[in-house]
């Protein structure tokens, strides 16, 4: 078996474009997932049974449907349901957002539940309003506590973005497939993809470990 690297000389513009597309798709999807996941968490903590059930059902569903299934549905069925013409990028990003939101919501909820109950009362006693309590007391703590988990959620979104190749969004894995299909040399482009992923994810993973360790030091 050979690992022929000459493909890099010819295809680097294609691969560079793929890296940029992957980063852009991931960034938009993850930001969307955070916003959507936040909204979802509010529903799930609202105390209204109907909304709570709907929110929980959403999370349960997206935790078991394979990502590729969600992507196919979003691509082939969503435009028909909405009666809109949506590009492969829009559908792919919507699918990644929907999946990420379920996970982000789980993380936010766990972060909220971990807060000591007394804090809310203490903030009230100090005369802080709802918004101030949330912004000054609760939100910063939740964010700090959930940071490692949120970084991992972002990493998952990045990994899932490779699945958009199946609907023709020209991200990094798609370019690797294209090069493989054209030259019948698959191993080298996919190894290249793995190395790029490693270079992006490894520092994030270190950051996540570092934040986690810092949190544990604080909580002691």
């Amino acid at each position, binding site marked *: *078996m050979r690992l022929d690297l000459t493909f890099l000389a010819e295809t680097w513009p294609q691969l560079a474009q793929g890296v940029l597309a992957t980063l852009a798709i991931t960034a938009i999807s993850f930001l969307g997932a955070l916003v959507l996941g936040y909204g979802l968490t509010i529903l799930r903590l609202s105390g209204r049974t109907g909304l709570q059930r709907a929110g929980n059902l959403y999370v*349960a*569903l997206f*935790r*078991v*449907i*394979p*990502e*590729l*299934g969600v992507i*196919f*549905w979003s691509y*082939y*069925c969503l435009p*028909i349901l909405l009666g809109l013409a949506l590009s492969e990028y829009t559908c792919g990003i919507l699918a990644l957002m929907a999946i990420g939101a379920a996970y982000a919501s*789980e993380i936010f909820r*766990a972060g909220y539940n971990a807060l000591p109950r007394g804090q809310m009362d203490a903030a009230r006693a100090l005369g802080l309003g709802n918004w101030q309590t949330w912004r000054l007391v609760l939100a910063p703590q939740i964010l700090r506590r959930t940071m490692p988990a949120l970084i991992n959620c972002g*990493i998952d979104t990045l*990994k899932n973005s*490779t699945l958009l190749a199946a609907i023709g969004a020209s991200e990094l*894995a798609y370019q690797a497939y294209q090069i493989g299909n054209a030259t019948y040399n*698959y*191993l080298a482009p*996919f*190894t290249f*993809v*793995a190395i790029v*992923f*490693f270079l992006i*994810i*490894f520092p994030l*993973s270190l950051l996540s470990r570092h934040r*986690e*360790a810092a949190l*544990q030091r604080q909580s*002691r």
Partner: protein
Amino acid sequence: MYSIVSDLLPGFLTQYWLALAFAVLTSLKFLALGVGVGFTAGLGLAIAQLSPSPWLRGPVVALVELIRNTPLLVQLFWIHFALPALTGIGSSPERSAAIGIALSGACYFSEIIRGGIQGVPKGQRDAAAALGLSRWCIWSRIVLPQAVIDTLPALANTVLSFFKATSILSVIAVPELMMTSTRISARTGDPIGVLTLMTLLYIFVGALLTLMLHRVETAFKLRSTR
């Protein structure tokens, strides 16, 4: 779109229901392997990750990071082609898939359990040592049970995400649910119907798994609070 689905569901279902059932079982077989072997090996790797010796800790942390930070799809490629070349032992898709999912499972579980172990106050270990308990006893009776129970929700999430990840095994032609569905869809010319049914099957089996994991979680929590 809906009429297509309703037109065609029965046709391939009567013809291929047995193949689909077997495909679900194959997916579950690899899930069991990834979770079973992965969790067991993950316990060991987690302890090794926290070892004071850099010669043990270094390689284990490197392996865990390497596996967690690259896509499973590429790992399967490597295992399927590079490993036979290195060891001289031939590989089948099933064998490569088994190695790939077990390795991945070990690394993901190890990372979660490591977090759990670090969450157990270190004072407990010192206290147990002061009481003269053996190292084996300290880890197996005091630290690991707490680490596992504390991280049960995260462990359950990982089980579910591995259930989904079994679909990636289709890239090396393992006949699990995704691969079999693609095959049936190519034979019947009905991709929408088959893929819809496939999604429903994933939801159904996934829901059962979720319930099961929930039961396990509650049972363990009850025991630990007693």
